[in-house]
């Protein structure tokens, strides 16, 4: 049985069906990257995995627990097994960097302040950031905000890491650094990782398996090598970034 199972998920927003009987299995320790164009339901999928959204139909089974049937309080507790990094970092702007990373530790552990400080420093070390503890999120660059978001996501040593568009809006060099960082964290922490992105370079760099979401369903999946050799015309157009093809014909 897979560690994370999305079974026949369907989700509609304001009459628009975003997910359509979507299914995917993710094994423990595996790094899966879900790619797809804008508005294809990548973020919606990720939010279903952590229970931020409830599907209209279907199941989300994590470690044999169907989280779609969990009461809110139990789900809240269950989320401690997750770490999630958001698109723009979603750092709490009323707090500085230190307080952001210390937030889950203060809330969910009985650690002393000295231990919290040590853990925050360790997390910042993991994302290669130094001397930013007292800075406010507004004083950080886009790349630094993402990295602080990563540090906050790993502070409780989660089993599952979710990355929502970790490189969107960043220059290619910073994007590569972020991709390296995801690989490093993955190796060091041994987590099960799900990343969503439309950046194919990042996808091929970090993934054990790449899956493509299109029209609310997974239409192709495989190792980065298998994925690059796909003959599916939609996948081909997406990988090659061409303006002409089935993706744009339908639009």
């Amino acid at each position, binding site marked *: 049985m897979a560690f994370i199972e999305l079974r026949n998920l369907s989700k509609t927003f304001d009459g628009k069906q975003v997910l359509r009987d979507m299914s995917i299995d993710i094994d423990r320790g595996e790094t899966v990257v879900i790619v797809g164009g804008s508005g294809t339901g990548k973020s919606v999928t990720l939010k279903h995995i952590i229970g931020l959204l409830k599907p209209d139909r279907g199941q989300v089974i994590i470690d044999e627990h169907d989280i779609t049937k969990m009461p809110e309080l139990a789900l809240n*507790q269950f989320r401690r097994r997750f770490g999630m990094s958001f698109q*723009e970092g979603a750092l709490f702007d009323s707090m500085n960097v230190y307080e952001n990373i210390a937030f889950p530790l203060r809330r969910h552990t009985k650690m002393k302040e000295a231990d919290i400080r040590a853990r925050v420093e360790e997390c910042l070390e993991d994302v290669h950031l130094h001397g930013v503890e007292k800075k406010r999120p507004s004083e950080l660059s886009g790349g630094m905000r993402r990295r602080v978001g990563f540090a906050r996501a790993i502070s409780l040593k989660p089993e599952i890491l979710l990355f929502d568009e970790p490189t969107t809006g960043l220059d290619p060099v910073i994007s590569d650094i972020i991709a390296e960082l995801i690989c490093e964290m993955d190796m060091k922490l041994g987590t099960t990782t799900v990343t969503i992105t439309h950046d194919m370079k990042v996808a091929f760099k970090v993934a054990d398996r790449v899956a493509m979401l299109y029209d609310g369903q997974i239409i192709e999946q495989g190792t980065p090598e298998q994925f690059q050799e796909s003959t599916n015309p939609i996948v081909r157009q997406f990988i090659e970034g061409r303006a002409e093809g089935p993706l744009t014909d339908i639009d």
Partner: protein
Amino acid sequence: MTTILERIGFVFIRVFEQTGLWFSALWDTVRWTFRRPFDGREWLRQMVRVGVDSIPVVVLTAMFTGMVLALQTFIGFRRVHAEQFVASVVSLAMLRELSPVLVGLMVTGRVGSSMAAEIGTMKVTEQIDALKALATEPVQYLFVPRIVAGVVMLPFLVILGDFLGIYGGYLIAVKMMNTNPVVYQQNTYQFLTLNDLWSGLIKAAAFGLILTLTGCVRGYYTTGGAEGVGRATTNAVVSASLIILLSDFFLTKILF
């Protein structure tokens, strides 16, 4: 015709929907208030924000309301030779009605709006999702400290408003209208009962709940980026002010 009926129906549905959200958030807040962890530091921070930081606004509002009330009643009562009742009218009006309502409305403008803007911005920048992802219930972390602060601090602000309103009336009557200060003071307390004070304080706590809960709910259900945050802020002030004014009537009817 259908369009008009549709519009009326839409308005009714929206009013029922908003009322439902409001009461559902109130119930969630009550449930989460008594669950661990208790964030004492955040509770204190919100009490300072709602209470201490609102003192200058309350001082000016209450003082000038007491002054103008004394001035107006003095002018009116002189016509029927009833100037001795100015003090009683000022004190009764301030304690029973003006201080709670005016403090409620002023704090709504100052605090309710900023709560809606703050929580609304958190919503559109995914900070609320981040809270949930960090296994933190937004109602417990955001609503509870703000609403507790509103319920606890508004009565203190109203006591301050009562005192300053009465003092403002005293200044006008004694310094401008040459009323005997000792007689004015005696008349101030002559017709007051403890119930006048209590009913004002109960109203204050109710208004504190209304303005903070409305600010939180409006912020929490914000959609649509910066424009949505602006809309939520305006709606929070308008809705909370209306609910305060409407509930004032019913509370007065129940409490007196």
